[in-house]
């Protein structure tokens, strides 16, 4: 065993507390970092990897076959800049009926709404290699392959061999299931089948040379449509839109996890620097002895590095393991329901490698600066430093504090930080970051709460129309009669009948869900970002994520299509929350789309706002008795898993970082007390009580806590301004200023106190143990 190793090991054992603090701090920071980096990676890499494997279509364009021939399209696609092309494929939009009667055995009932069907002979090809995950590809007319997420079937009858009966199409047999990240179709048939389906569009799939950015995709679109007849292009879809859609939720976590990860990392570095420089400074005599024994300067540095690296490596390894464990369920939560099985939520190994190598590297760097001071320290100086009193730089300040009217213990405490300016600065920075974290976290939670509140419809009772298919009772009353009955119930304040209908948006290969509202729909409006609530026919309201995704804005027009009928509508308002594929519209807009909305039961739920003071359970019971076939469900408001997860993980991370900051204070007080044993012994010998000693030590840190609050709150406010909009932008939304200004004077005052709270919490324990130290013990240690 080498001398360096033996001395380091002894030092690690002796400084159990500091060693434990380093390990704990590194561990918590590593956990936060692994989770943050893991999410960042998971949010982008799997999509890109799978998309590249499938040679996904960077641009999917549909053209009007009446205006442009296949030959013209092929010619345009041969232009420079186009790397690969597939198609043209004939495309038709079929509509699955919304109210299928009881399913016959062997007949598939797909979810109601439009299905984009494309004629393709081959799932492979230069662009959009479709992943056929069950069955086989279509070979002849009468066969169909359905686009489904890997491993998923919609409905009990959906299997290879089942039949599909769609209005306007011959009976088709399902021969396989396939998925594609390009989202180029909802189903595929053989090209020979297409004429019977009356195609309305030609689909062409492109890959461009070096098209990563939105601009490049737009330029690519311009290239392949240049010179085509007016109106030939029906619609186009960039892969970036698809990617944004699929990774939005995960991306929302990234800015805040990254912010917390970086904060954690910086706090860890500061505490490590503080611990090590503290060890060096309080070990001056130790260094002198080592040097007088013949330790070379490098060996002295090595002793100090090993001393912090040992717990640092343990912390990094444990932190990585715990981080991996924590990240797995989080990744799963984040992606479930969004990836549709396309991505596997696994942590990529580089995250582990990076933290396992990076954390110790950070520790070494943080330790090196003060350890190099030990390297340079003259042995003669070091040895005499042990017994000679230091020339305190704080002396003058301390004398000044002594002249104030403060109790002596307090004024002595206030002077303490000046005796070790470097250590005080590091501790202060830790406190500032702790307060920054608390401020950011509370702002984040308030903004998210405001965001949830914006999505809250203030509806207390929602009743669903019974569905005979799943064993429920269908109502006997007609739609209008039900609404009238609800209005007559005691306790009813407002009633809205809701009809969710899948629609085709002309010019897009994707489906949008229309929510048509009848009754007191104006009262249902959620927080608006722009414009106003829809009130008349031809008006719709969309979420800001919708306008971002489709490149539209308030005032723009779009054409909705249902079962062959079209209706032009205008976007009159933009809501803060809501789905990127959803439009909200008054009943009149639905009336224009379907000839007689009275004959089909479009309404599947009734939303009731209750008069104040009405008991929800009693009301629902009365409702169920009054209208058989309605199924009331208690409705708590729009708390979704994303916000719960964000608020939850914010709280956990805040507590972690506040604890880490408190540990930093703890460590500083331990070091100060150890260094000042003799002073403490002296103060006690002249009559200072243990309570006064505690007060003095706690005051010294509380003073830093006050400063930490004053500096940390503004930084936290700035971080909030940066992180929250980035998060909301990631899910394709925007926030009105009212949701950003979540700060009130009392809340700010409390936040200012957070620094003091952290400081006092961290200081109390070591201050009390310093106060308990007996004078004999102090003198013995000399």
């Amino acid at each position, binding site marked *: 065993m080498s*001398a360096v190793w033996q001395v380091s090991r002894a030092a690690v054992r002796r400084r159990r507390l500091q060693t434990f603090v380093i390990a704990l701090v590194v561990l918590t920071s590593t956990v936060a970092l692994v989770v943050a980096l893991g999410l960042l990676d998971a949010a982008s890499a799997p999509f890109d990897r799978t998309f590249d494997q499938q040679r996904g279509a960077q641009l999917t364009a549909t053209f009007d076959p009446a205006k442009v021939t296949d030959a013209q399209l092929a010619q345009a696609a041969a232009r420079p800049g186009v790397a690969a092309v597939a198609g043209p494929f004939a495309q038709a939009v079929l509509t699955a009926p919304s109210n299928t009667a009881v399913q016959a055995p062997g007949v598939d009932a797909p979810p109601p709404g439009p299905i984009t069907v494309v004629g393709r002979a081959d799932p492979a090809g230069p662009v959009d290699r479709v992943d056929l995950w069950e069955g086989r590809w279509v070979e002849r007319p009468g066969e169909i392959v359905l686009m489904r997420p890997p491993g998923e079937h919609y409905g009990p009858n959906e299997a290879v061999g089942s039949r599909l009966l769609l209005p306007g199409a011959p009976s088709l047999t399902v021969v396989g299931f396939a998925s594609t990240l390009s989202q180029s179709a909802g189903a595929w048939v053989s090209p020979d089948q297409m004429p019977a389906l009356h195609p309305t569009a030609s689909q062409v799939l492109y890959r461009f040379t070096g098209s990563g950015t939105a601009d490049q995709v737009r330029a690519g679109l311009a290239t392949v449509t240049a010179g085509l007849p007016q109106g030939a292009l029906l619609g186009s879809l960039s892969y970036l839109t698809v990617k944004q859609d699929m990774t939005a939720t995960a991306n929302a976590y990234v800015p805040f996890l990254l912010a917390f990860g970086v904060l954690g990392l910086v706090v860890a570095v500061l505490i490590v620097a503080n611990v090590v420089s503290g060890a060096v400074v309080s070990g001056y005599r130790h260094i002198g002895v080592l040097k*007088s*024994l*013949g330790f070379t*300067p490098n060996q002295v540095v090595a002793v100090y590095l090993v001393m912090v690296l040992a717990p640092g490596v343990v912390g990094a390894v444990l932190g990585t393991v715990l981080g991996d464990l924590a990240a797995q369920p989080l990744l799963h939560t984040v992606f479930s329901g969004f990836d549709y099985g396309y991505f596997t939520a696994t942590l990529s190994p580089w995250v582990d490698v990076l933290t396992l190598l990076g954390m110790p590297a950070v520790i070494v760097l943080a330790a090196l600066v003060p350890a190099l001071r030990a390297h340079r320290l003259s042995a*003669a100086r070091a*040895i005499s430093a042990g017994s000679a009193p230091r020339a305190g730089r704080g002396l003058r300040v301390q004398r000044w504090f002594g002249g104030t009217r403060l109790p002596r213990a307090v004024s002595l405490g206030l002077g303490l930080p000046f005796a070790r300016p470097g250590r005080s600065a590091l501790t202060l920075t830790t406190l500032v970051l702790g307060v920054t974290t608390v401020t950011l976290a509370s702002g984040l939670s308030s903004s998210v709460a405001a965001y949830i509140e914006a999505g809250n419809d203030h509806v207390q009772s929602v009743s669903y129309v019974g569905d005979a298919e799943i064993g429920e009772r269908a109502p006997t009353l007609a739609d209008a009669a039900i609404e009238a009955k609800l209005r007559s119930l005691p306790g009813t304040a407002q009633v809205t009948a809701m009809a969710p209908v899948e629609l085709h948006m002309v010019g897009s290969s994707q489906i949008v869900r229309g929510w048509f509202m009848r009754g007191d729909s104006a009262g249902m409006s959620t927080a608006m970002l722009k414009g106003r609530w829809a009130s008349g026919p031809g008006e719709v309201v969309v979420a800001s994520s919708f306008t971002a995704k489709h490149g539209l804005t308030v005032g723009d027009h779009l054409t909705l299509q249902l079962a062959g009928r079209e209706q032009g509508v205008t976007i009159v308002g933009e809501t803060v929350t809501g789905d990127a594929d959803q439009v909200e519209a008054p009943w009149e807009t639905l009336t224009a789309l379907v000839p007689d909305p009275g004959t089909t039961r479009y309404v599947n739920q009734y939303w009731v706002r209750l008069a104040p003071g009405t008991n929800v359970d009693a009301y629902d019971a009365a409702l169920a008795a009054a209208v058989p076939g309605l199924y009331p469900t208690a409705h708590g408001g729009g708390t979704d898993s994303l916000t719960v997860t964000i608020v939850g993980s914010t709280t956990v991370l805040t507590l972690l970082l506040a604890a880490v900051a408190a540990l930093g204070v703890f460590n500083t007080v331990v070091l100060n007390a150890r260094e000042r044993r003799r002073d403490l012994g002296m103060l006690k010998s002249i009559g200072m009580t243990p309570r006064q000693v505690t007060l003095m030590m706690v005051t010294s840190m509380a003073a830093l806590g006050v400063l930490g609050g004053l500096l940390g709150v503004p930084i936290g406010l700035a971080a909030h301004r940066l992180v929250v909009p980035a998060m909301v932008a990631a899910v394709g939304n925007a926030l009105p200023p009212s949701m950003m200004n979540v700060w009130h004077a009392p809340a700010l005052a409390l936040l200012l106190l957070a620094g003091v709270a952290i400081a006092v919490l961290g200081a109390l324990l070591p201050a009390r143990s310093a106060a308990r130290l007996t004078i004999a013990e102090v003198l013995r240690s000399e």
Partner: protein
Amino acid sequence: MTTGDSSNAGGTEAGQVVVHLDGVRKEYGESTALDGVSLDIRAGEAVAVMGPSGCGKSTLLNMVAGLDRPTSGRVVVNGEDLASMSETGLALFRRRRIGMIFQFFNLLDDLPALDNVALAAQLTGVSVAQARRRALELLDELGIADRRNVYPAALSGGERQRVSVARALMNRPALLLADEPTGALDSHAGEQVMDLLIDLNQIGQTLLIVTHDQRLATRCASRLVEVADGRVVRQRSLERTA
């Protein structure tokens, strides 16, 4: 006692010059700690340095140990000019040639007595087992083998100083330096340390002792060097009283 292996320690022969100081000056900013000190110490000598507090005795000792560098002048120890050595070179020189004893012992609080002593040998590359064996021999000779597993905080002052003497002797140094070795001890423990130093010198160990203690000087030293204001003001041979 067999500690006398050290008679030929460092390859020095009796009479050979072990320490040669030539016009050594040391300034700390404005103040001058040493002001042109010249001094020779031969192998086997026991030299005591005395003088008022702050006159530069410890500084002189640090120069000889290579713990500090002179502002000007030459320091040659065991034939090696310390001025030409790097920090690392000085460290290697110290481990093999110099043993040091301090007023406040300067033991490593983290290690038990035995390991404190063994550490010095481990630095020279000796295995831990071998180092411990030799350390135990030394502790035994100094009469504190039974305290080998005790940590410094639990040792008495006299015991601590004996541990530090053992540590200083581990590598059979050419020169044993002592700065106020009895300064923190009561008279009984001080006597024991003095006896130890006398024994060591009688078997050939070269000693340089800094002290305020007239009794220590006259009992242990063969020559007395008096320092004042950073200069050697007087030297004389002593008849040992012990």
